[in-house]
């Protein structure tokens, strides 16, 4: 050891150790028994430092078999430390253990017992349990206490033997030796906790336990066990715990304990740690049994006293306990609210963590305003990993308890100002919904002004940017008038149109603005074009910004919107968009939490398994596109910025990846992967899809070749139709002209999909009308049809007419699918389909490849 200590570098240490190990190995081979124990002890040291030492295992066995006590001792020690995981070696020891257990020398017996306990191999325990049982009543206290601990291991590993042991253990409680009492109590505690079937038997011990505790409390000064004025606090604590475990859910036992608990709680002095330990355990016990209220009040008072103690340990313990109590008895804890809030500002991080949990638990209708202010303060200093969690919890609390919409919005804005980077999509979607709702009309000016000011100050908080940009775009004119600040701190000045545009432009130009933000800014310009009458020329110029951008989404928007404003534009196209009501938002959040709820930071798009999403009715191509894009974003491991999804638009058309869970591919990557996660699960089809679309700025466009697509700009929605009437021809009207044979795309288990084809108006476009029917005797629900096509084809699916298929072929549903085959004429269309539905209480999924598409399509 001295040599090892003298090593200056790790390499030197390794050298010394390997030399020593070599020496040890040779000496083992030579079967030198005199120094064997020393060598094994050396091996222990080596093992502790982390080097392999398994060659010493057999030596331990030999040591154990030796008659010398020292050898045995080191052998068992070596066994417990070095050999724990190899059951074969352990089997060899069983024999020696067995003979040692019946040895004359109680120390040897004790050794064997501790070794057995530490090793706790279930087979060994089972074989030797008979001997352990006998030893429980041995004359030597040493042996008894160790046997009791062995019994605990037996309880854990060989539960069927518990019955035999319990009565003996209970009789051990009559013992006078504290150690025996301690171990016996621990054994009972174990039974009470882990083996509820035997608790009835163990409960017989309760009166005895109470008596022992009483003796302890009342006894005088006992020097060997005294710790700081209290006799054997360990025993106190264990008895209390055992009482707690045994008295749970049992009124009779609980009653027997009431007096003694009250006595302990009042009489124990709390100025030293040992006393506090006992008080703490007392409180724990009180709350685990159902006892009378007086006791509970007593316990909470103790906790209150703890909270005010200056020692951090005690405060931590008190906060932990209060956290458990608050679910039972909220009012009592409210009294200590101020102290808890103070703990939020404590320097110690463990205390802060506990305090935060407690504060969230305490939030209620009355206290929400105060407490949320505190939490926002805490958010400023919280470590980044914690911020996201805090934000989502605050969001939940705000939804449940907020006193007014105005307060709700402002709190959300404050939250985003502090931690906008870390919020989930939920937050800013909620914020935008709230701002847009008609009830918000009266305080909307102040909100939008505030967002403007916040954006001006700090445009790096992504959530804030999205909300602000959206609000400015939608409600721009409001900024042209002054408004009073929230909570009356003054006035916001009126702004000019130029100033507004300048801020948007500045935000757009920032190097760290995400693709989503930039897309939204483009949208905002388009909206402002209609709303700001003076700056129309300026805005058209601004819209040219991304005409030649490398990013497909941005370029598409720039070109499309420029063309849009340049042509004969009708104001109603860019009018205010309808916003989901509270119930709809709640529904979304529920389905979002069923779907991929793991939208961490915005745009990142990490998601859970897509399989759950099949339950939702999302079958439009935008939903599918977003899901596919999200998977891509995840696979490409792109972080917040959303650019990953945008950039991978080409990969959307990959065959198999889409089939991993997405469905048809859209085109023009829906970069709003993360953003629309929450929106994806919406229940009622078209309107929601479009709104989700708008929030995320999804790639609603048709094939890039089409000149004026269904823009992702906001529009009064009406069932997925194209905005510009001129495009109506394509998807909306029934294709006429050439006729193609009907194709039976899929037929299995009574589910049939047939497809009718027609040429579309666009270049190389094909319109497929798919019809689904169900010829089983049971109805089908949640019918979802997903398709994937190879890269050279682009696919756009419209929502189906419904998801339920009535039995016996009635109630058919239809769905229109637009395909553009860029290799029309050279390569035929091939499609892989995935059909999922519920029938007769079962969820079924089918996959198939569809071939036989007519040539020339």
């Amino acid at each position, binding site marked *: 050891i001295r040599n090892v200590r003298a090593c200056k570098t790790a390499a030197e240490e390794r050298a010394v150790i390997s030399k020593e190990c070599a020496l040890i190995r040779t000496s083992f081979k030579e079967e030198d028994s005199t120094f064997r124990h020393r060598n094994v002890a050396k091996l222990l040291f080596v093992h502790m430092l982390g080097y392999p030492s398994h060659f010493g295992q057999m030596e331990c066995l030999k040591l154990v078999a030796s008659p010398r*006590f020292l050898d045995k001792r*080191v052998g068992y020690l070596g066994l417990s430390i070095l050999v724990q995981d190899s059951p074969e070696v352990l089997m060899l020891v069983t024999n020696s253990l067995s003979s040692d257990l019946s040895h004359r020398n109680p120390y040897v017996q004790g050794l064997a017992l501790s070794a057995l306990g530490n090793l706790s191999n279930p087979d060994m325990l089972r074989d030797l349990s008979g001997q352990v049982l006998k030893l429980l009543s041995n004359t030597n206290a040493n042996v008894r206490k160790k046997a009791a601990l062995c019994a*605990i291991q037996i309880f854990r590993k060989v539960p069927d033997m518990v019955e035999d042991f319990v009565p003996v253990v209970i009789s051990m409680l009559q013992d006078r030796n504290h150690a025996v009492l301690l171990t016996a109590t621990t054994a009972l505690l174990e039974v009470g906790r882990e083996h509820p079937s035997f608790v009835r038997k163990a409960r017989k011990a309760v009166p005895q336990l109470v008596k022992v505790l009483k003796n302890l409390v009342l006894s005088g000064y006992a020097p060997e066990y005294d710790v700081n004025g209290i006799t054997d606090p360990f025993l106190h604590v264990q008895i209390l715990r055992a009482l707690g475990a045994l008295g749970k859910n049992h009124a009779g036992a609980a009653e027997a304990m009431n007096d003694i608990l009250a006595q302990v709680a009042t009489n124990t002095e709390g100025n030293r740690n040992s006393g506090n330990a006992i008080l703490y355990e007392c409180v724990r016990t009180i709350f685990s049994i159902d006892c009378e209220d007086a006791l509970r009040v007593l316990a909470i008072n103790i906790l209150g006293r703890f909270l005010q103690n200056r020692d951090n*340990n005690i405060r931590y313990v008190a906060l932990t306990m209060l956290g458990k109590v608050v679910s039972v008895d909220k009012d009592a804890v409210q009294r200590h609210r101020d102290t808890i809030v103070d703990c939020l500002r404590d320097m110690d991080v463990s205390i802060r963590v506990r305090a935060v949990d407690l504060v969230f638990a305490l939030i209620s209708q009355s206290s929400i305003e105060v407490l949320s202010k505190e939490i926002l303060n805490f958010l400023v200093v919280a470590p980044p990993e914690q911020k996201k969690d805090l934000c989502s919890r605050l969001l939940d609390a705000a939804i449940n308890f907020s006193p007014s919409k105005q307060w709700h919005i402002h709190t959300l804005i404050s939250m985003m100002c502090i931690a906008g980077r870390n919020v989930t999509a939920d937050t800013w979607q909620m914020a935008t919904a709230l701002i847009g709702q008609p009830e918000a009309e009266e305080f909307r000016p102040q909100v939008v002004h505030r967002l403007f000011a916040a954006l001006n100050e700090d445009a790096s908080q992504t959530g804030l940017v999205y909300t602000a940009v959206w609000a400015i775009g939608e409600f721009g004119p409001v900024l042209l008038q002054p408004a009073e600040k929230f909570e009356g701190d003054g006035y916001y000045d009126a702004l000019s149109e130029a100033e507004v545009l300048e801020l948007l432009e500045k935000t757009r130009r920032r190097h760290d603005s995400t693709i989503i933000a930039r897309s939204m800014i483009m949208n905002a310009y388009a909206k402002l074009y209609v709303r700001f009458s003076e700056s129309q020329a300026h805005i058209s110029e601004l819209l040219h910004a991304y005409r030649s951008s490398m990013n497909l989404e941005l370029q598409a928007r720039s070109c499309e919107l420029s063309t849009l404003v340049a042509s004969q534009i009708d104001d109603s196209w860019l009018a205010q968009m309808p916003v989901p009501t509270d119930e709809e938002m709640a529904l979304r959040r529920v389905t979002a939490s069923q779907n991929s709820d793991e939208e961490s930071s915005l745009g990142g798009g990490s998601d859970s398994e897509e399989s759950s999403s099949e339950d939702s009715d999302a079958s439009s191509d935008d939903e599918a596109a977003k899901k596919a894009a999200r998977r891509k974003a995840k696979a490409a491991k792109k972080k917040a910025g959303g650019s990953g999804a945008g950039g991978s638009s080409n990969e959307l058309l990959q065959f198999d990846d889409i089939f991993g869970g997405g469905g048809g591919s859209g085109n023009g990557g829906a970069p709003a992967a993360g953003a629309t996660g929450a929106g994806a699960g919406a229940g009622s089809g078209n309107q929601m899809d479009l709104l989700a679309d708008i929030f995320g700025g999804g790639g609603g466009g048709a094939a890039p070749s089409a000149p004026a697509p269904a823009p992702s700009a906001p529009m009064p929605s009406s069932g997925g139709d194209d905005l510009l009437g001129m495009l109506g021809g394509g998807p909306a009207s029934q294709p006429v002209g050439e006729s193609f044979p009907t194709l039976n795309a899929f037929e299995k288990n009574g589910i049939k999909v047939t497809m009718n084809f027609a040429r579309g108006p666009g270049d190389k476009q094909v319109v497929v009308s798919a019809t689904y029917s169900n010829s089983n005797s049971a109805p089908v629900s949640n019918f979802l049809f997903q398709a994937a096509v190879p890269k050279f084809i682009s696919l756009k699916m419209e929502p189906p007419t419904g998801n339920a298929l009535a039995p016996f072929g009635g109630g058919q549903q239809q769905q229109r699918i637009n395909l553009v085959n860029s290799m029309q004429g050279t390569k035929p269309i091939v499609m892989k389909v995935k059909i999922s539905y519920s029938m007769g209480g079962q969820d079924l999924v089918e996959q198939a490849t569809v071939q036989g598409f007519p040539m020339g399509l």
Partner: protein
Amino acid sequence: INFVLMVNKRGQPRLSSYYEWLSIEERGALEAEIIRKCLSRTELQCSFMEFRGYKVIYRRYASLFFIVGTGQDEENELGILEFIHCLVETLDKYFENVCELDIMFSLEKAHFILDEMLQCGQIVETNKANILKPLQLLDKVSR
């Protein structure tokens, strides 16, 4: 109790006793991380931490950190602090003014003492006389 560690200020383990099986690499990683966390806390902070699903209770005596890890929600933390103190006092009684070197050089004796006090992860004996009796006997015999 899942493990007991004695680690010096530089991160070198002086004694490690595990009551549930962990492989060697896991142990090394665990010890390194825990000691780093303990070292970064100041005097004023409380002695309890949550780490990887364990509750960690530690206390510093001179140059050694005594670290005890228990499962969540099982043990009374203040009680464990008392136990650590009892352990130190016992070591002190046996080694007479114990210091880190004593533990290093008589590793197996330190293990014996710990094993008398703590078995299968539960506290067995806290009476110093009882704990040290077998050891004193052992010493007498091997003289």
